[in-house]
């Protein structure tokens, strides 16, 4: 996905997140109900890239109701960065103060500091300064409110993202690549939920729990799905059966059995174990890592080709969601163990930058001869090796 979002998108996404927070009573209802968002002030990174917008919120009576910081760059990992219900953000007033501060700092010098551009810069996120530029070059950078000159970048050796107390640094440049990638994936997932949900055509320029309430029968603050008889949600109840593994090492056989059962291909676990080369009840064995793909082959073979199965490596949360929404269970390999996934849940609420809970509904064949249904397994605390999807081949 693109790293940067357009202003219009930022306003829309920010409005959506604020509406959800307001509805869930995280924000002070008296101040926020009926409030609207104004055009945001762009705040830049030290490296010149746009980081986020600070968006003033005006209450229904016209009074200030604080501001919200909404990401314009996916490096943050989540759209809503902060909400400050008590604070006042008046861009013009702050620019005026900054100009006066610049004059005061250079009073007595022979020439004033020329500038032809002013921008707000997160010189040490989340700390913000006002930067003055002349012909594209920085002429001065004054920290908001203290109006102290922000020192130039230090050449001192230090760890990335661990700046000194009053030091300018680039959030985008210093963030490690793997963390940036993870954040961008999370951001994309969040956007997908917000854009794909029933709130898609909801007017987000006004914050209103009342208007949200009128749509409450179709809006869920969590996105939760479990396997049913079909993709028509009105059909029957949850439709999936747990199979305990019949030996301490037949988790793969039991998982394969659960999926085949779902598609009405009934085999004993012993028969499935034979197919997978997992020995017998008297002399059972597990599946070596080198033969992981045998599971996909077995699903296809034992359904006489009706199931097209695919092995995936470390799939993201979204893959599980996609399969469950299509009403298809998955086999999930974690280190040393196999189980199946029959549902997911994800909180759509994002509170001050922290992503809500993501969970999987796991039908776990462990312990032997019993199994458990895990509702929910915290996705963010588990390592996932492989997943196996299977879909019915249709004409």
């Amino acid at each position, binding site marked *: 996905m693109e790293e940067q979002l357009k202003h219009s998108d930022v306003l829309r996404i920010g409005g959506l997140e604020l509406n959800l927070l307001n509805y869930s009573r995280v924000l002070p209802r008296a101040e926020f109900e009926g409030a609207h968002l104004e055009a945001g002030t762009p705040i830049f990174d030290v490296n010149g890239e746009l980081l986020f917008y600070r968006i003033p919120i005006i209450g229904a009576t016209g009074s200030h109701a604080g501001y919200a910081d909404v990401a314009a760059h996916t490096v943050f990992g989540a759209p809503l960065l902060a909400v400050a219900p008590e604070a006042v953000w008046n861009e013009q007033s702050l620019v005026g103060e900054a100009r006066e501060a610049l004059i005061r700092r250079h009073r007595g010098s022979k020439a004033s500091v020329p500038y032809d551009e002013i921008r707000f810069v997160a010189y040490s996120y989340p700390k913000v300064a006002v930067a003055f530029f002349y012909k594209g070059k920085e002429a001065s950078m004054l920290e908001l409110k203290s109006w102290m000159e922000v020192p130039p970048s230090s050449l001192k050796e230090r760890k990335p993202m661990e700046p000194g107390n009053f030091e300018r640094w680039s959030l985008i440049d210093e963030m490690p690549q793997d963390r940036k990638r993870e954040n961008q994936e999370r951001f994309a997932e969040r956007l997908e939920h917000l854009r794909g949900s029933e709130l898609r055509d909801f007017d987000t320029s006004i914050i209103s729990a009342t208007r949200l309430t009128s749509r409450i029968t179709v809006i869920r603050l969590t996105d939760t799905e479990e396997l049913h008889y079909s993709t028509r949600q009105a059909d029957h109840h949850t439709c999936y059966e747990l199979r305990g593994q019949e030996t*301490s*090492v037949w988790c793969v056989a039991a998982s394969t059995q659960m999926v085949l059962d779902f598609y009405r291909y009934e085999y004993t676990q012993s028969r499935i174990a034979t197919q997978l080369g997992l020995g017998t009840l008297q002399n*059972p064995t597990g599946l070596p*890592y080198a033969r992981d793909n045998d599971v996909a082959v077995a699903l296809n073979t034992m359904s006489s080709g009706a199931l097209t199965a695919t092995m995936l490596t470390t799939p993201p949360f979204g893959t599980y969601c996609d399969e469950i929404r299509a009403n298809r269970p998955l086999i999930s390999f974690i280190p*040393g163990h196999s189980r199946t996934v029959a549902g997911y849940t994800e909180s759509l609420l994002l509170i001050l930058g922290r992503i809500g809970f993501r969970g999987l509904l796991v039908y776990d064949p462990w312990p032997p001869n019993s199994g458990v249904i895990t509702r929910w*397994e*915290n996705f963010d605390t588990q390592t996932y090796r492989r997943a196996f999807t299977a879909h019915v081949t249709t004409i």
Partner: protein
Amino acid sequence: MKKDDQQAHVERVAQELWERGSLQIPGGSDAVVGSAVAVRDWSGGLHSWVVPLTIGAKLVAWAQFSPQYTLQRFSIFLRRETELNRCPNAADWLDPSVVEGRVREKAGPDVRLSTPILTFDRDPSRLVWATVVRDTSGSSQRWFVAGESVWQDPGIDEVTGGSASL
């Protein structure tokens, strides 16, 4: 035995989650939150906590928490109110003396056992009790117990499920 602070805290967290409905057991609203059991890693350090939920003598669910009290999973044995008999006996999972008895049944009466610890087989979701069994010749072997299942630890890592059991 006096509870330590961590154990007491994780039990309080579990109790709170149960009382406010964050943890639910279909047909098992009568469940009682029990004493937390420490899950050890192979070096003997604390890996996580398991807090059991029981109805009478039956184990109907357990919640597993990290040492920072983050809920890792909530796993349910009870599927329907009328199927309490299909749930494991709580003692099988919560009473180390029962665990010892199961190993002795398989390993023979002349062996010596270390104190069983609750740990996991490869993945933290595969909870097992482990004990080291020393026979009369002096050789020792780690054994696992999961409910009524008892087997020797084959010690092979890159196998999904593990290797041959007894």
